């Protein structure tokens, strides 16, 4: 049994005492598996170190009447100058175990081959992870501490780890922390949420997960810095990493994964859709979104999302087969509407995604509501963002939304002496997050000598995206769109 009683932990920092854990109490009996959910920086790893005994609590007690492992898959204790074999020998000595038996196990499990006799510093990170896990398994403990074990290794290695832990050692106690809620759900019998330095035990997974979701939804992740990317290429790049560091995004896609695994396709599509609304230029989850739509027979939606995935740089072989399938199912010829891939270079020449359709629709039509069938046709017909914008300018909705601007251009004179005070946007819906930044870096990239940071600032402070962008010389290198505008004004 492990019994934590009123455990506190604070660290002295230059800005005062940082209270990481406050009054933590829990008990863990033999065979129980406790899963702990918590945001980044909630103190999960600190709690693990205290339970493992590597670190002392500031006050309170932790009693152990069973042997407790070190936090698993942890590779930091390797001496990099020593060989994998030497490290196995060291651990065997520390825990008074049979070295030859351990070495045989590590040889078989970690699959390092001759590298076992090379210094650990020559290992790849995957090899280190395999060695770390294998070494963790040579020592038998009553209780295993598992810290984000899902983060390392390939799928096959992962499976073997799960087998070693949850099948062969099914009778042991465990404490598991992970960002992967499904992993906790599948392997734990008890659940708790760590937040604001306090640990709250929950009746079941659903309750714990609901609480965790509520906490994550409360405030955006502070770690996600928001700087305006310099152009569309960088916008796409930044979206990949920023999205995965934003817990709101990771939680929503995790939600989507849970629904997908349960074949609840409508819920899955909604969850992936909500995640992509936060980061429309994150490419990987467009495919998942498309799969969920496809399973419900929503073929136009699926097609748009597959095309978006390809346009944002998802490898085509992963997408093409699915796209061809949904195009054919709609009675069209896949050869006529092939998948277009991501092209590097300036935004005007890049393949558009649904993200661009919505963004530009909001800009030139005053709404980002675009029917799936229309979005599908736009993405089918237009192979570049420039062509897409030109077509949207040619649409009657442009005249509707930007009538005043067109009129002002026709007078070929400065706007009326007393322009109507910029009416605050009447739209009930606030613009989607990051829209000003995205527009600014697409229309006025720093790579063309403009200042997207200032433009984004101007757009969000005035709410007048079109006039601000044009005034800042936006879309200067978009010939089709420029020509479409000329035609609009001349007509």
């Amino acid at each position: 049994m492990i019994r934590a009683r009123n455990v506190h932990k604070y660290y002295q920092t230059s800005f005062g005492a940082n209270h990481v854990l406050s009054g933590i109490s829990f008990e863990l009996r033999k065979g129980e598996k406790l899963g702990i959910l918590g945001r980044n920086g909630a103190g999960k790893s600190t709690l693990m170190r205290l339970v493992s005994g590597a670190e002392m609590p500031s006050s309170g007690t932790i009693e152990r009447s069973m042997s407790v492992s070190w936090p698993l898959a942890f590779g930091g204790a390797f001496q990099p100058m020593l060989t994998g074999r030497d490290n196995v020998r060291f651990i065997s000595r520390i825990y008074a175990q049979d070295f030859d038996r351990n070495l045989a196990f590590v040889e078989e499990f970690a699959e390092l081959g001759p590298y076992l006799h090379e210094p650990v510093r020559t290992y790849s990170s995957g090899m280190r992870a395999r060695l770390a896990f294998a070494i963790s398994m040579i020592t038998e403990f009553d209780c295993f501490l598992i810290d984000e074990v899902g983060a390392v290794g390939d799928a096959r290695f992962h499976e073997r780890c799960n087998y070693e832990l949850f099948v062969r050692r099914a009778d042991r106690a465990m404490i598991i922390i992970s960002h992967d809620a499904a992993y906790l759900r599948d392997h734990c019998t008890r659940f708790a949420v760590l937040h604001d330095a306090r640990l709250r035990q929950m009746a079941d997974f659903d309750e714990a997960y609901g609480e965790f979701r509520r906490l994550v939804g409360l405030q955006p992740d502070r770690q996600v810095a928001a700087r305006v990317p310099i152009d569309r290429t960088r916008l796409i790049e930044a979206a990949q990493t920023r999205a995965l560091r934003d817990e709101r995004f990771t939680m929503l896609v995790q939600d989507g994964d849970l629904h997908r695994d349960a074949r609840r396709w409508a819920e899955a599509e909604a969850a992936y859709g909500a995640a992509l609304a936060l980061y429309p230029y994150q490419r990987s989850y467009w495919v998942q979104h498309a799969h969920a739509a496809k399973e419900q027979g929503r073929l136009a939606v699926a097609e748009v999302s597959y095309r978006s995935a390809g346009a944002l740089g998802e490898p085509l072989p992963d997408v093409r087969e699915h796209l061809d399938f949904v195009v054919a199912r709609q009675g069209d010829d896949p050869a006529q509407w092939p998948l277009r891939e991501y092209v590097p270079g300036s935004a005007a020449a890049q393949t558009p995604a649904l993200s661009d359709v919505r963004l530009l629709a909001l800009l030139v039509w005053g709404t980002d509501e675009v029917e799936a069938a229309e979005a599908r046709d736009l993405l089918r017909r237009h192979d570049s963002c420039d062509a897409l914008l030109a077509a949207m300018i040619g649409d009657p909705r442009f005249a509707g939304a930007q009538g005043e601007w067109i009129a002002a251009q026709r007078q070929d004179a400065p706007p009326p002496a007393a322009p109507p005070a910029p009416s605050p946007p009447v739209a009930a819906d606030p613009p989607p997050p990051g829209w000003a930044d995205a527009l600014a870096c697409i229309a006025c990239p720093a790579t063309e000598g403009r200042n997207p940071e200032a433009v984004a600032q101007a757009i969000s402070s005035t709410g007048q995206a079109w006039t601000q962008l044009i005034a800042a010389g936006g879309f200067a290198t978009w010939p089709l769109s420029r020509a479409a505008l000329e035609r609009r004004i001349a007509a």
Partner: protein
Amino acid sequence: MERPYQAQTLRHSWEIQLRVVGALLIRETLTRYGRHNIGFLWLFAEPMLFTLGVTALWTATKTVHGSDLPIVAFALTGYSSVLLWRNMPGRCIGALWQNLALLYHRNIKVLDIYLARILLEFGGATMSFAVLGTVLVGLQMLDPPQDVTKVVAGWLLLAWFGGALAIALGALSHRSELVEKLWHPAAYLLFPLSGAAFMVSALPPFAQELVLYIPTVHGVEMVRDGWFGDRAQAIYDLGYLIPFNLVLTLYGLLQTRRVAAIVVPE
């Protein structure tokens, strides 16, 4: 307080500690010397080279040391002693920062990390001293020691001082970088005062009184007393050195305990 699962009896704890320090010692040796060329022989080859070099220098410059002792014997006993007490703190300062990750293994305590390094340094310096002494005696460049027991006792007292100092400074260095910064000049300046380069009896009385506050002086004098007997006219006081070592050890252990309570593994 903590009641670790395994440490139930004192004897059991002692066995674990021996095992852990032994494992750390081997790990440390392999890490420092590897398996290339002469491998762990460097452990004492390195201090031997130092001692031989200094002996050669002092012989060449005919350094005045204020006694009629042969310069080779003087340098061997003197410089070996310096290596003994000076390298231990050098290896323990900052040792914990380099080995934080080891603390995830609950049986490994902060003190074990220091003990392993101290033992390694002790082994190296002792082997160097013994091998050089034997060789020089064999070559008849040096008379054999008159009282081996006294040499050994003096040597062990010096090692005790070095070890206690190493634990204290090692623990302090985890809390303040100043320790590391100040140790290098301090060690350098202490070298001429440590008793390695003079005999106390050769100093004027007021200087004798001052240098006898330095604990290493007593240790070196005792080693020389054992080696040279009456010729050395050694002056030392175990009634000073032993209590000094005891207090320093206690202080070092207290500091280690303090650090162990606040240390944060990586």
